[in-house]
């Protein structure tokens, strides 16, 4: 399947999204303002911007982790504002992969348990689940680390566990918030390769928020976010 064919379907779309937070003074802080965004299926999209530009908030809203103050988001044909919390949870569990800025591993859970957590309520029996968990951890070079707690792993290994967790449910969309922001250059390179490999092999859609650590050359499209607004479309292949 060619790239142009794959771009035919918009997998994620935001329309007029606004997100505010209450400020201590009683007013409001505008994190996102009138964001319109379309993410085509199978492409890698980069959202770049400085720290505080609203990238993490945008990804949280797009993933249904937070509710927009106004506007609408559609993911894989589902209007998120019409879904209740359990439907949103199922959508995330079945179709979405999240890469967090600081890995966000559960510190008291082992590497295998962190990855298994995604599948725990998916109806897959434990034996099959563990087989999948062990396979993906092995693919990411963590064969001997199943029973290690995150604190017992190096930063690079932690990031790979986080990636294993993202990929284990075979998501159709990966939202990655600064996936290379907290790791050394070598680990960053490994992470990028792993993500891009998944995009190439399975046609997974990838949306990356970055302040410059992710290579722009790998992206099919690139938006710039400034002060909560989509400032410009910098690149479209």
């Amino acid at each position: 399947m060619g790239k142009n064919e794959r771009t035919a379907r918009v997998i994620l779309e935001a329309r007029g999204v606004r997100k505010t937070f209450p400020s201590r003074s009683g007013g409001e802080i505008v994190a996102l303002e009138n964001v319109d965004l379309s993410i085509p299926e199978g492409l890698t999209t980069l959202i770049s911007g400085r720290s505080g530009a609203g990238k993490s908030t945008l990804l949280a809203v797009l993933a249904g982790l937070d509710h927009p103050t106004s506007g609408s988001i559609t993911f894989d044909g589902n209007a998120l504002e019409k879904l209740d919390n359990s439907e949103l949870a199922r959508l995330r569990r079945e179709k979405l992969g999240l890469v967090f800025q600081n890995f966000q591993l559960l510190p008291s859970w082992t590497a295998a348990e962190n990855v298994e957590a995604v599948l725990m309520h998916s109806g897959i029996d434990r034996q099959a689940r563990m087989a999948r968990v062990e396979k993906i951890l092995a693919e990411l070079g963590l064969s001997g680390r199943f029973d290690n707690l995150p604190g017992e792993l190096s930063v690079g290994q932690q990031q790979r566990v986080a990636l294993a967790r993202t990929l284990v449910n075979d998501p159709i969309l990966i939202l990655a918030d600064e996936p290379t922001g907290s790791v050394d250059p070598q680990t960053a390179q490994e992470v990028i390769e792993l993500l891009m490999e998944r995009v190439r092999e399975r046609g997974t859609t990838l949306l990356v928020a970055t302040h410059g650590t992710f290579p722009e050359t790998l992206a099919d499209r690139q938006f710039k976010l400034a002060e909560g607004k989509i400032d410009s479309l910098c690149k479209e292949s």
Partner: protein
Amino acid sequence: MRELIRCAWRELGRRKRRAAATTAGFALAALILFSVGNLLCFSRQTMSDILYNVGTHIIVSVPATGSEMTSAASGPWPIDSLNEAFYSEPNVVTQLLPRALASELAGLPAVLGATPLMLYRVKDSEKGFLFSIAGFDPKDKIALDNNLCSEKDIIAGTFIRSGDRGVAVVTDAFSITTGITVGSSVKISGISFPVIGIIKPGINPGKADVFLCLDDAVSVINPRLRQPMGDRVNSFLVEVKHGRQMEEAVSQIRGRIPDCLVNTFFCSVSAIRVLGMNEGAVWILLAIVLVGVTLYAMSSQWSSIVERRRDIGILKAIGWSDSEVVWQLGLESVIQSLLGGSIGCGLGFFFLAIFPVPAWISNSFSWNGELAGIVFLVGIVVSLFCGVVAGAVPAFYSARQTPAESIRSN
């Protein structure tokens, strides 16, 4: 569910200190609950003993007025009305009432049983002394026991059994004053009744010197009356269902026989109130302990959830639903409460077996395994309930937050 239980168990294992502290709180509460529960059961057992001995026995009669006795020249009144009389208390002369009233009284809601009783004061025709006879139906054991006399009062010989006729039982006092013993006879209205037993009845509402079957009593009393009494008696023995229902029973009896005289041991009323107050104080103490433990467990669970707020946010971000999070957190609390409840009640059993304090305090206490088992189960169930309450509130609070809020909070 199995996955959630496994997960909850694992989480508790990884927070050993907090889990142990919370479980110990539940264990302490269950131990207190078990101890207080057994104390209450002991208290109730003791109270029942007291009430059984003083608080459930009644004798009912209707006093006769002077005009009735003098004007009813042809009625069923004693020929020797100066010496002889139907009585309930030594100085209270009574009217006659239909025997059938006994079954009506027995049917009252607060009444356990009722039986007709004949009490008649007689003048001995040979020696001229006065004594009293009681005619009763030996088969009505419920109303007789502790109300008039029973087999347990026998100190010599045997007691009158249902179906016995023509025999008598006398009190020890009557036996001493008259010299009548087991094997000799007592003669009333020319009929001799062999004495088959001597009793020491203690303090009962119904009092007499000689005890006969009701029909025998009627047959010896009728010749002493101006007219036969027919199918009537002068009093009824009533057994109330429970000491607490004494006043209710008296009220119901008075509703059926408006002018009646009800004699009982009314000191039981104040005894019941005092015992009730003690029991009330124990219940209040118990409620305070349970509320305290629930708040303690809730606080502990709350702290645990605050510590794990980010973890909960992550779980929700990767696809756990609110209900799965609530179940997970709730199960942790339930496991701790079940474990704590079992340990506490187990310790209670252990201590009670080694230090049977109630048995030291009262000879009447008897170990009731079934009752202790019920208290054990109640202890665990109450502990579980507290655990559910303590776990549910923080869990629902946690579930209300969006994953982003929870993750941001760290």
